[in-house]
């Protein structure tokens, strides 16, 4: 299966692009081919967070954003409810999603560095989108505090000690915007949490999630393939061994 996926030889590739026939734009294309067709196994470029023990470097996973272990566990359990382990395969925790989110919150995503964050801030209509003065990192922090608080209020237990059903009830209350969070809405926090979980499950493993490409394997997504030109006219459905960008 994986051999079939590497169906295009470098020579065929040059032929079909027309590069061989003449002009080459820059030097980039050929450069991008180096390593293509090698049998190197795809490997996430960052293995610090391996929790499944497949990696020789695995040790204690490092965190960049969350300080408190309790908060990180709340995050982990919440992502697992959004994307649970089942007979199809890994859930958010085994995919490394919590660590993916931790890193994202420590970077541009968390600090909203490419979003308009100037005031004045006002509560808008839902059609006007994100209007919080808090950035995503702050919203996650407040959201996680609120998840813990709401759990204690409802069940006199921390979020991580709840049953799955109870966790779902709390998360549903957030999704429906029934819980108050200072500076943001619980629905907005839930929306961010849900998207970040899917992003962690399905982004290239170089970001720390989608561990061992399990997310892509489950979904039948081939990841980074050079080209489908020689396959796209065929009737059969084609299975690929997914490849990470880190494998080129």
């Amino acid at each position: 299966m994986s051999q079939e996926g590497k169906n295009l030889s470098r020579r065929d590739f040059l032929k079909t692009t027309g590069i061989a026939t003449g002009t080459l734009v820059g030097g980039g294309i050929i450069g991008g081919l180096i390593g293509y067709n090698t049998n190197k196994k795809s490997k996430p470029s960052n293995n610090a967070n391996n929790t499944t023990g497949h990696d020789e470097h695995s040790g204690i996973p490092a965190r960049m954003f969350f300080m408190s272990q309790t908060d990180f566990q709340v995050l982990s359990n919440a992502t697992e409810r959004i994307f649970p382990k089942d007979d199809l395969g890994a859930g958010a925790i085994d995919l490394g999603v919590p660590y993916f989110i931790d890193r994202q919150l420590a970077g541009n995503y968390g600090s909203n560095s490419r979003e308009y964050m100037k005031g004045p801030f006002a509560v808008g209509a839902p059609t006007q989108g994100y209007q919080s003065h808090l950035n995503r990192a702050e919203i996650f922090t407040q959201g996680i505090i609120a998840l813990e608080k709401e759990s204690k209020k409802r069940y006199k237990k921390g979020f991580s000690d709840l049953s799955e059903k109870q966790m779902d009830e709390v998360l549903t209350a957030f999704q429906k915007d029934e819980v108050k969070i200072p500076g943001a809405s619980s629905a907005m926090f839930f929306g961010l949490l849900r998207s970040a979980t899917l992003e962690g499950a399905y982004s290239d493993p170089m970001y720390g999630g989608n561990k061992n490409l399990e997310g892509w394997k489950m979904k039948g997504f081939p990841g980074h393939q050079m080209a489908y030109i020689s396959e796209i006219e065929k009737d059969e459905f084609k299975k690929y061994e997914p490849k990470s960008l880190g494998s080129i």
Partner: protein
Amino acid sequence: MVKTLPKVDVVTVGVGWTGGIIAAECAKAGLKVVGLERGQKRGTSDYQQIHDEYRYAIRYDLMQDLSRETITFRNNRKMKALPMRQLGSFLLGEGLGGSGTHWNGQTFRFLPYDFQIKTMTEKKYGKNKLSTDYLIQDWGLTYDELEPYFDTFEKTTGISGDGKNKHGGKRSNPYPTPAMKTTPLLKKFEKASGKLGYSPYMMPSANLSEPYKNPDGEQINACQYCGFCERFGCEYGAKTSPEITVVPTATKTGNFEPRFHANVVEVVKKGNKVTGVKYIDTISGEEFIQPADVVVLTSYVMNNAKLLMVSNIGEMYDPTTGKGTLGRNYCYQILPGASGFFDEQYNTFMGAGALGMCFDDLNGDNFDHSDLKFIHGANVALTQTGTRPIGTNPILPDTPTWGAEFKKQSIENFTRSLGVGGQGASMPHKENYLSLDNVYKDSYGVPLLQMTYNFTDQDKALHKHISKKCGDILKEMGAKTVVVNSDLDQYNIVPYQSTHNTGGTVMSLTPEEGVVNNYLQHWDVDNLFVVGAGNFSNNSGYNPTGTVGALSYRCAEGIIKYSKKGGSLV
């Protein structure tokens, strides 16, 4: 201290498709051109690690940095406009090539009907087909007059097409390259829509079917169907973009200098002429005046309108009195459609940005609207642009959007669901317009552009009618379950819809009706040209860039004429 630079013949604000075309044509004609671009330089060699959905399709790495500048938005005049703090509904471009770097490449010509929409609608359906709240007007240029410019744009870009559209305007030449591959999915749509009486044809594509050298000598390579196209740059140089065509064409004349990190904040006007533009070097923080004989606004719909407004050029539209033209006729795109769920698995992850099969039987006035409460329609298509796992999670209605059932269905349906959709035309309405915000500012202290926009009754009726037809096609294609898009409600700026914003700086036959004449020359200021989809007085049932490209060639011709003779060109 503002530093004044040596004067040039032509300065453009932005170097995307419009700016690139103006630069290439003017530089070839011997004019000295400077292109001021707020973003960075980039090109094919920068796209070698581009197959990264998270960075490019989700975090929008190639697009506008909103921390510096955005727009404000409200649905109607009673609401308070608030900033669009994150990208969503549309994805604004930034950097060399503009949105032309990460577009899909679906390249259509608008219909003859679009250009004479008022005359033709009234002739067939009388004066009261739409209420007077809808500001439809003729464009001041017919399809036939624009045809040579469409032809030039298609040759520059090497568009791949089969020329089988029965409903299009007359063509002087066939497409420069043959259509892309007809994949099993496209064939399925072709068969079903043909059976229902429609006339399918291959979508005209700027992802080229074969290697092509354009008349300027630029090489465009053959598309590899890599599935990372819409929202990505092309690592093969196979998706025609400004940075592989018009920009090198302009550069090799020796008459063109693109200047990066140069954010224009004002068009400088003196008497009834403009003398140049003021810009900020966003790296050094220095301010400059770039004097020029001709100023061309090529900064997309939003900033073309904004720069005129902040520079006090032209009369702002007032929705209460209906007076003024600047900001009027802002339109968008209506997206009717349906999803089909199948038992079989399809290679949906393979694809290219403009790989599709479509028909125009439900577009323009190609069908009778006598008993319908709307005019115009949509090009209806099945496209195979390459599904990706973060963005594509198809679930049946009433399924929870997270948890076990969500996971199961979204995985199961990833390769088992197909969409048929239309790009619906959008008609101008007196309450939909662009203006200046009086609260929020960009990083340079300039007011943000304000958008007041909502879907109209016309939009809702069009959407309902075409969505149902899309559902019928999916049934014919053998879908096990068909889910027709629910009715249009309020316009919401959060979910992605389309980067086909139009209007605000419309072209017209008379100064009363628009901002620029049919050479895209400003009605009040002879040496100022404004070009882009902002010139459309209504949006069609297609993607805009084929028509934007044609208007850019028309505009370049006007600038060259003006540089010889001066004065108004009409």
